[in-house]
């Protein structure tokens, strides 16, 4: 069967030969024009004069657009309609697009965009969390609070307690392919858009609004992205809308790609957080009660910040059972780029908070942090039969709530930002039985496998012996200090905006037996297309080479959710399976009738269709079905069962299941300079019954390195005027080849998903990023070897911060 084979990425051959096309590589119609934005140089202020004569007179310029030239909606927000495509009177951050230049080539547009004379009357800008707190500038009315038990009383009654704070920096996506879009006007007044986007339906929706068209008039096609990581969920709206408006105006195709510096200055990044904590615990480190206050710096517009901040709250427990917990979340507005989705979507920040708490407790008690982590783990899943798990059989499950409250009609329904209005679940959320441990949001944890995973990883990584060796090394060496840490990951899988957990697919079987596959997921390098193709091939019992993978296209599968929240394979794999099964069942029913056999006895396997004593090749069976007028085309649809929660109260089951992982990182620091190296990383990650272990291991390796980069070298710096000073790879340091740990062992856990997912696999896009937290904790361990104090290392733990922490623990 095709599923579970470690096949190469579907486009591997195209990539190694240079044949694979990205948006900027698509052959364009004659006379294609190019766009560039003129940007605000002020963080906040009123535009008092806008003189664009020099821009219009520049060589190659065809047109210049301002907000006044936009014919319909001036809005690229995925949520609160607070993000104009081009500024209207006021600017809100350095880098905000004010006007657009249409020119006959890319460089002419960029050069002309610098010639605008913009006068801005500056207003006080809120740049930091403290600025926003002082001004009470926020999204949503006040802090969100999730509660379980009585944290304050539990902390007061505990034998020991401590408190602290950690600053966690943001992260630039640095997808290698920058944002890009191409709009091609159609002869019927419609628009075809090629976009580098994780969310074609969102692009379709925003372009339709920008052109005053119905969604049916706009077609969006996405064959691939050169990386997304969340940065192409909403941030491509501006380019697509600008291209579409300019294409409508000029009647010509229009293309835009951000230069890298513009991309970094204009687009949103991961939210930076400050997390305050107070915890009570006993002599073995068992947490009695914990309180978190999470402050998220959301930037100037709402974008997806509310669900990001929600997910940070939902991961404040990570792998630990918290009997008494209080989590308070502030979503703060600043005059900086609008922070957006980034792999993990708030989950990583929430998780760093609790991992810091456990590290701090262990230091306070002088115990191995791994022991402290383990005494706080959730109880192990009871080893029920593999068919049990979280969900009942698919046919028997109740549907997720379908009713969308009237309040949401104004919202952008296909966007994760749509949750800007509270949606009450229909009916009360059921209470779990008292013997089951629950999360701080009252969801039972019934699939917890980290005890077994931690045992195995500690053994394969030789953790106890290496921890002793690190201690010995540190006793003998004054300058270079080593540290080691094992941290777990438990990540909730599902869009927290429940209605987004749906997907569609379209499958055709042609009369020669070839199969055309289409679904709503987008390919950004993660291998989704290959994994879904393997599912389709398996349903028909044929080889994957027979399945033709095609570009995501809003004209084939409508109303898609973003390829985000790690949901790509879970949702689209199931939808494709449903479409394939419909066709397969039709062929089986027809052949069964022909041979007077039971349709359930017809087998599709190894390229053949077996019915009674007769065996057809797949091609023969398909040809026969065609000649007998059997429909060989079907759509498939899937919606995740059994999820329902109240995000305002913080109660219910937002997730279908959890994905797990654990990592051990060993690091060495130079106590004189703060420089460090990651020496070794060992990872055990849970991808359920993997659809493609080679692709999944690739996600784990890349996720770890990206997560470790976030927490070590990737530092975003804004100056006191709100200008991002780290706006190119020269100053913003993503991991390079030599930064990777010298020894890097990655393995997949071999258990099937207890929930009924596609072939019992698990989502694998985001969870591995949080394995990188072990790198931060290893550095903390190394710094702790320098003196009696607690390192309290902020993130990213740059060499400067490590050096400062060394001095601090010695003081």
């Amino acid at each position, binding site marked *: 069967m095709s599923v579970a084979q*470690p096949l*190469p*990425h579907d*486009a*591997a*051959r*195209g*990539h*190694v*030969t*240079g*044949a*694979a*096309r*990205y948006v*900027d*590589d698509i*052959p364009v119609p004659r006379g294609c024009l190019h766009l560039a934005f003129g940007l605000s140089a002020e963080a906040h202020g009123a535009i008092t004069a806008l003189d664009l004569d020099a821009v219009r007179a520049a060589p190659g310029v065809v047109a210049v657009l301002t907000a006044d030239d936009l014919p319909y909606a001036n809005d690229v927000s995925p949520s609160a309609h607070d993000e104009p495509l081009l500024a209207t009177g006021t600017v809100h951050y350095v880098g905000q697009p004010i006007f657009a230049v249409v020119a006959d080539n890319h*460089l002419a547009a960029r050069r002309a965009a610098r010639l605008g004379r913009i006068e801005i009357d500056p207003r006080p800008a809120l740049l930091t969390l403290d600025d926003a707190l002082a001004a009470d500038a926020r999204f949503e009315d006040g802090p969100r609070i999730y509660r379980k038990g009585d944290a304050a009383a539990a902390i007061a009654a505990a034998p020991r307690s401590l408190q602290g704070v950690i600053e966690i920096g943001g992260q630039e*996506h*640095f*997808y*290698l*392919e*920058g944002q890009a879009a191409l709009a091609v006007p159609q002869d019927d007044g419609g628009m075809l858009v090629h976009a580098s986007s994780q969310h074609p339906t969102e692009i379709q929706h925003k372009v339709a609004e920008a052109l005053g068209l119905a969604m049916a008039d706009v077609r969006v096609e996405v064959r*691939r*992205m*050169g*990386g997304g*990581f969340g940065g192409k969920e909403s941030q491509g709206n501006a380019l697509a809308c600008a291209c579409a408006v300019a294409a409508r105006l000029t009647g010509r195709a229009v293309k835009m790609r951000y*230069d*890298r*510096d513009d991309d970094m200055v204009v687009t949103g990044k991961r939210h930076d957080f400050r997390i305050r904590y107070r915890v009570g615990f006993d002599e073995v480190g068992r947490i009695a009660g914990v309180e978190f206050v999470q402050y998220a710096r959301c930037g100037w517009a709402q974008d997806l910040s509310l669900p990001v901040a929600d997910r940070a709250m939902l991961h404040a427990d990570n792998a630990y059972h918290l009997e008494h917990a209080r989590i308070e979340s502030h979503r703060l507005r600043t005059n900086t780029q609008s922070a957006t989705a980034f792999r993990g979507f708030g989950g990583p920040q929430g998780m760093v908070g609790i991992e810091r708490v456990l590290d701090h407790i262990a230091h306070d008690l002088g115990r191995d942090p791994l022991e402290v982590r383990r005494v706080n783990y959730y109880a192990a899943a009871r080893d029920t039969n593999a068919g049990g798990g979280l969900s009942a059989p698919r046919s028997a499950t109740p549907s997720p709530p379908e009713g969308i409250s009237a309040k949401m009609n104004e919202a952008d329904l296909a966007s994760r930002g749509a949750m800007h209005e509270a949606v009450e679940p229909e009916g009360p959320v059921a209470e779990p039985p008292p013997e089951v441990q629950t999360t701080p949001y009252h969801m039972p944890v019934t699939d917890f496998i980290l005890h077994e995973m931690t045992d195995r990883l500690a053994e394969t990584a030789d953790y106890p012996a290496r921890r002793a060796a690190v201690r010995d090394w540190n006793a003998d060496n004054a300058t270079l200090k080593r540290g080691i840490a094992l941290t777990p990951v438990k990540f909730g899988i599902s869009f927290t905006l429940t209605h987004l957990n749906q997907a569609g697919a379209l499958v055709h079987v042609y009369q020669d037996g070839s199969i055309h596959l289409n679904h709503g997921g987008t390919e*950004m*390098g*993660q*291998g989704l297309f290959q994994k879904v193709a393997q599912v389709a091939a398996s349903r028909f019992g044929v080889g994957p080479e027979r399945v033709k993978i095609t570009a995501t296209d809003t004209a084939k599968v409508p109303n898609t959710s973003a390829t985000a929240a790690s949901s790509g394979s879970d949702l689209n794999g199931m939808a494709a399976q449903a479409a394939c099964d419909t066709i397969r069942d039709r062929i089986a029913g027809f052949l069964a009738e022909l041979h007077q056999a039971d349709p359930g006895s017809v087998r599709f396997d190894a390229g053949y269709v077996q019915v009674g004593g007769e065996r057809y090749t797949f091609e023969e069976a398909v040809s026969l079905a065609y000649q007998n007028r059997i429909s060989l085309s079907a759509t498939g649809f899937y919606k995740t069962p059994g999820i329902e929660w109240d995000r305002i109260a913080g109660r219910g089951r937002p997730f279908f299941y959890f994905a797990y992982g654990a990592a051990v990182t060993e690091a060495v620091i130079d106590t004189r300079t703060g420089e460090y190296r990651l020496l070794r990383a060992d990872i055990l990650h849970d991808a359920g019954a993997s659809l493609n272990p*080679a*692709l999944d*291991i*690739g996600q784990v*390796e*890349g*996720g*770890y*390195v*990206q997560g470790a980069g976030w927490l070590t070298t990737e530092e975003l710096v804004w100056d006191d005027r709100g200008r991002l000073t780290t706006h*190119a*790879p*020269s100053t913003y340091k*993503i*991991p*390079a*080849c*030599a930064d*990777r740990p010298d020894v*890097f062992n*990655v393995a997949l856990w071999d258990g099937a998903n207890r929930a009924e997912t596609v072939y019992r696999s698990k989502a694998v896009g985001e969870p591995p990023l949080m394995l990188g937290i072990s790198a931060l904790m290893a550095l903390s361990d190394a710094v702790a070897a320098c003196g009696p104090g607690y390192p309290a290392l902020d993130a990213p733990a740059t060499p400067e911060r490590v050096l400062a922490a060394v001095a601090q623990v010695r003081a």
Partner: protein
Amino acid sequence: MTDLTLTVNGKRVTRDVPGETLLSELLRETLRLTGTHVGCDTSQCGACAVHMDGKVVKACTMLAHQAAGTEITTIEGLANGELHPMQKAFNDNHGLQCGFCTPGMIMAGVDMVQRYKAEGKTLDEAAIRHELEGNLCRCTGYHNIVKSIQQAATEM
């Protein structure tokens, strides 16, 4: 406009291009060889790497006229009927995800293997990691990229 003559993937090419045209623009827009990607526009990420007279250069910050009279090889010119061993190694070892950095990685990989061979040096894992500092990948964590170059080094 000025006439520019050079050899690209074995074919002699003469084009009338402005003096400020970048080599990456000439390849991508004039010659439609879009396998050479532009990632950072500032010669740091290496997605635009091509060979000039057998040595790797970054095409996004080089003027096309600086390549006058030279032989340029792009990712499209590497395969000779069948995949080059470096291309095959990236395919076989899952040395790519989104693929955007891949052409540059492959061109850098071929260059380093040839250079080390010519100098009689061993291209071990540590050397590959050091040599690849000028090529960024955001997806893979580099593990399979290093493996790919190691495999190709034994086959070239």
